[in-house]
């Protein structure tokens, strides 16, 4: 028995050694090409030092801004808490003050909110075999699509709407400048996640209506994650400057 198995085992062992070596070679190969690609990328970066400088500056500024945003968020929380207490004290003199303040803050959009509602996501088409005579414009999500969805949600009684991390306020524009979509002056990237607070059944019905927006998007083969109803949708506070409205005394 052992005499018969020996050559076979040998063959198997040598085969496995060979495949291990092959595998290692393959991985070396990949590593090499990766290094080469990275080198080329670095070269592209060095190619335009001014662009690189601007990019670095931009990243730094963005980082500082998000720190400031966090700081402001904390301060506002502190202020709201103090106002809560102040409102209770002021109640004897002016009973509606506290409630009105809270209500109009919700309306202006500066408060983070929570409530029943829906979320859903929209993205460009991932379908490869669309008819050749189709306009490629049909396959991507435009600012007008985001506007239409927002409008539909508001028509259905949404009390607050947010796209990605941008809350829709009284001065929020959804516009496109060249190939980028901007909301509140901030660039937003696909996929586009909608969050809306309101009657969840009505909101869902408004989108999934036969012949409604989602049907049209589906026909265009856009990528849709259908509306999910939830009892607690969280929405950001608006942190913009109301296009200078507040400064205008």
């Amino acid at each position: 028995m052992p005499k018969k198995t020996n050559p076979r085992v040998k063959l198997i062992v040598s085969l496995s050694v060979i495949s291990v070596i092959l595998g290692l070679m393959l991985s070396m190969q990949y590593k090499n090409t990766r290094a080469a690609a990275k080198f080329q990328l670095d070269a592209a970066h060095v190619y335009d030092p001014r662009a690189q400088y601007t990019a670095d500056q931009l990243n730094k500024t963005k980082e500082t801004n998000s720190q400031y945003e966090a700081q402001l968020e904390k301060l506002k929380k502190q202020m709201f808490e103090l106002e809560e207490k102040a409102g209770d004290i002021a109640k004897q003199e002016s009973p509606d003050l506290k409630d009105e303040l809270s209500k109009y803050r919700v309306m202006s959009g500066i408060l983070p909110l929570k409530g029943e509602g829906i979320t859903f996501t929209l993205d460009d088409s991932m379908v490869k075999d669309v008819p050749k005579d189709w306009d490629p414009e049909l396959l991507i999500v435009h600012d007008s699509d985001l506007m239409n969805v927002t409008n539909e949600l508001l028509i259905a009684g949404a009390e607050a709407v947010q796209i990605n991390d941008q809350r829709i306020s009284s001065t929020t524009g959804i516009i496109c400048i060249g190939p980028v979509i901007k909301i509140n002056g901030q660039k937003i990237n696909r996929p586009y996640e909608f969050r809306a607070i309101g009657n969840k059944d009505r909101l869902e019905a408004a989108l999934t209506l036969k012949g409604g927006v989602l049907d049209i998007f589906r026909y265009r083969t856009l990528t849709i994650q259908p509306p999910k109803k939830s009892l607690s949708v969280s929405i950001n506070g608006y942190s913009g400057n109301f296009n200078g409205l507040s400064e205008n005394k």
Partner: protein
Amino acid sequence: MKLNNKITLALVSTLLGVMMTVQFTSINRPKLDSSAAVDTLQLTTELNQETERQQFLRRQIRETEAKVRGLESQKGNQSQLVRTLAEELEQVKKQAGMSEVKGNGIIVTIEDDFDLIAVKDSYNLSLYRSLLGDYLFRVVNYLKGNEAKAISVNNHRIVSFSSIRSIDENNLQVNTVMVSPDKVMIKAVGNVDQMKVGLSIFPQPFAEMGKKITVKEVDDGTLVIPPYDDDAVQYQYAHPEGEKKL
């Protein structure tokens, strides 16, 4: 032998599989955004905006700090607290669209042009005309995205939850109130030049509806945008984070 054979094969293929996986994941990971370094102009614009935003945030932080200090120092003083809160309420009402805004701005009129209607194919015309609400919502968005501070459509103030809806060709709703679609007047206070730039894309789609769009400038500060006209703003579903009810 058969078992040995199987084991070796399994081992080798597992090894290969693991190696391949590691390779692929490590190859796919470094997705450097090479295009970011290319477009200097776009970068510069973005940098300017972020810098502006930084100034705004700094101002906000200073103001909020001052308010916090004020509220803390007034703790025992009831009438002073009432005054502070009332001032804050004025500010918040302004941001919510609950107070009148006056200033420089533009008046955009979108109305039927019978010369245009006469030359359009009637089927396409009514198709386009049923989209009036969507297009008006776009006009409002392009004004907001181009530095409009306050906007009204047929004297209905645009607020955070405003919608514009075409029920059909002849029925239009703004803020759920019926308005006439024949002549729509949009008033906007804000940066006049910038708002006009934002409107430049609209004449063509409105022409498809047999409508012409005209823009009139008001530069003596007399354009008035009325407040949102429903005093009974009620929030049924949305609650501030942390609070139970409004």
